[in-house]
């Protein structure tokens, strides 16, 4: 087994049944697979949901994860996405501490990242941004010094570029 662990993107089509998320989460937890992020939502077909799961692991682990997932009756199809040929986006909401002194500087950073301000108060600013995972992390780093009060990230959703696709 090689020790080259890295992040892998799995796109998984599942039946839109109650409890599917719990089954997948349970499977990962039980077998010690580490989930970096997991998103799920319905697709163009309301009976099917797409999960985008980012996992840490080496090649052997990813193969086991994929095979164990396939054993779940509610899992229809799985594809491992190649990061280079994939569009991945994540959404973040960050609430930072903002006084009249620091507000302008924060707004400058927001503009540079082409993020949006979605809430303002005397002491806070709430920022929304969509982008690749590394861009999200960069914004978070830049805003740390102002004091991040609350932060909510969705985890990545991914689709392959061009004509490659995962569908029924």
């Amino acid at each position, binding site marked *: *087994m090689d020790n080259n662990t890295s992040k892998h993107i799995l796109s998984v089509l*599942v*039946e839109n049944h109650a*409890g599917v998320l*719990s*089954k997948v989460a*349970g499977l990962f937890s*039980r077998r010690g697979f580490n989930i970096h992020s997991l998103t799920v939502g319905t697709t163009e077909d309301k009976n099917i949901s797409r999960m985008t799961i980012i996992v840490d692991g080496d090649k*052997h682990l990813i*193969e*086991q994860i994929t*095979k*164990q997932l*396939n*054993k*779940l*009756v*509610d*899992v*229809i*199809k799985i594809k491992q996405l190649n990061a280079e040929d994939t569009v991945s986006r994540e959404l973040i909401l960050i609430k930072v501490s903002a006084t009249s002194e620091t507000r302008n500087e924060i707004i400058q950073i927001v503009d540079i990242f082409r993020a949006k301000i979605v809430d303002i108060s005397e002491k806070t600013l709430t920022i929304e941004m969509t982008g690749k995972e590394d861009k999200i992390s960069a914004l978070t780093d830049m805003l740390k010094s102002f004091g991040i009060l609350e932060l909510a990230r969705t985890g990545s959703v991914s689709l392959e570029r061009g004509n490659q696709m995962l569908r*029924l």
Partner: protein
Amino acid sequence: MNGSEILLKSLEKEKVKYIFGYPGAANIPVYSALAKSRIKHILTRGEQAAAHAAAAYGCAASVPGVCLATSGPGATNLITGIATAYMDSAPLIAITGQVTRAQIGTDSFQEADITGATEPFTKHNYLVSDVSDIPKIIKEAFTLANTGRKGPVLIDIPFDILLAESEFTYPDKFEIRGYKPKYKGNQMQIKRIVSAIKKAKHPLIVCGGGVLSSKGEEILFDFSKNLNIPYVTTLMAASCIRKDSPLSLGMIGYYGHPSANEALSKADFVIVCGSRLTNRATCKCDMNSKTIVHIDIDPAEIGKNVDVTFPVVGDVSIVLEQIKNLIPSDYTMNYAPADFSQEDAEISGDYINPQYVFRILSKLSKENTYITTDVGNHQIWAAKNFNFKNSDRFFTSGGLGTMGYGIPAAIGVKTANPSANVIAICGDGSFQMSMAELSTIKENLLPIKIILFDNSALGMIKTLNPDNSLSFATDLTSNPDFSKIAKAYSIEFNQICDNNGLENALKKLVESDKPYILSLKIDPFNKNI
């Protein structure tokens, strides 16, 4: 008709003949419908036993066995039996009552989240949400339980659904798009394997439980004979050992035959058939530097524990035939046969020699002998020393190693095959875990034989504790007088304490046409497995 009647009608559509069960408040409506059905109910004395009996029935009959329990503690008592079936890929349907839909999630009386609790141990499970779903769920459950890699499926039915009225229509087709087991091996891969076989110097076949599941014993024996490739077996396939065949090198594993473990270590080309190759099976062997062909119906088992050179997903019987068809008929190989002589333990000492017991039993036993075992030293003695013939079968809890399996499994296999000669092998520890099922044996007039290896201890654990410091936990100091237990259940009993009376005692056991318990007093410090 109501949900219970729809349930029973659906089970009848699946040709179910028996249900092993235990009633409770939440599943009473099922029993009302069962009373009017042609399906026969076998009341066990505990739900774990019902699950073991149904799973063993499924393995023996090659159709899913069905067990039925009530909600809450009835359902949770099934879990051990379900997990046992899961680990050994037994086809099992578990039906549980549940509180009403409105009560779910409120910690109601006898409420348990059994679908959540059994997720790790079921191939799939259902919480019925509408009475009209029952037929489709039954059809899906039976197909899932008995195809691909077989396994347990649980169906949890809320009380109000059991009473709800609906029409009965049974689906013709099974359609789950996420379930497509593969039976035929990839032909390109088969070609590559055939080329590689020709280069092998020390080839070996590993015969696992999957061979039995696939009913591929004859195919494997022929394959081995035609190519002159010897085979070893795992515990689950111990009934494939043939001491009179030079090709059969014994059982591998932690408690395996040294000859088998040695053969596997030495092999450079291994064809693994229907085995998961767990650490328990390979720990006494060096698995490095080998070309490994792994044939299994479950792709997730291939490459999980051992790196594989030629993975083949498919049914063992079908794949072995595919390989055989591409190999020239005059092709044979050379190998050294095993020497079992040093493993035939010496008959000595004051106590009964357990290995000797099975050799005598093999001589005396009739056709269609079904041996079920519990878990412990006796299990290993049975697997390694009974000389199985083609009509004989071996049922044991290999994957989970569940004590309490032996007697209920005997009930299950006898029910599946009334003409089989069923012998349950137990230790005094495991016997006491399912002792209550003697009542089930009595009630159903099942002429099951039980051989009880009595050392007043948990022998296998005791052996793992050489300085005997844990005797407070491994010694069974307050065992009942088993002769009185047998008498309490009106079951014939005999006890032997030395090797002299052994052959006669075993003869009487084999020839009896009634339930029979033979207790054999063995050395509490017997370390020879």
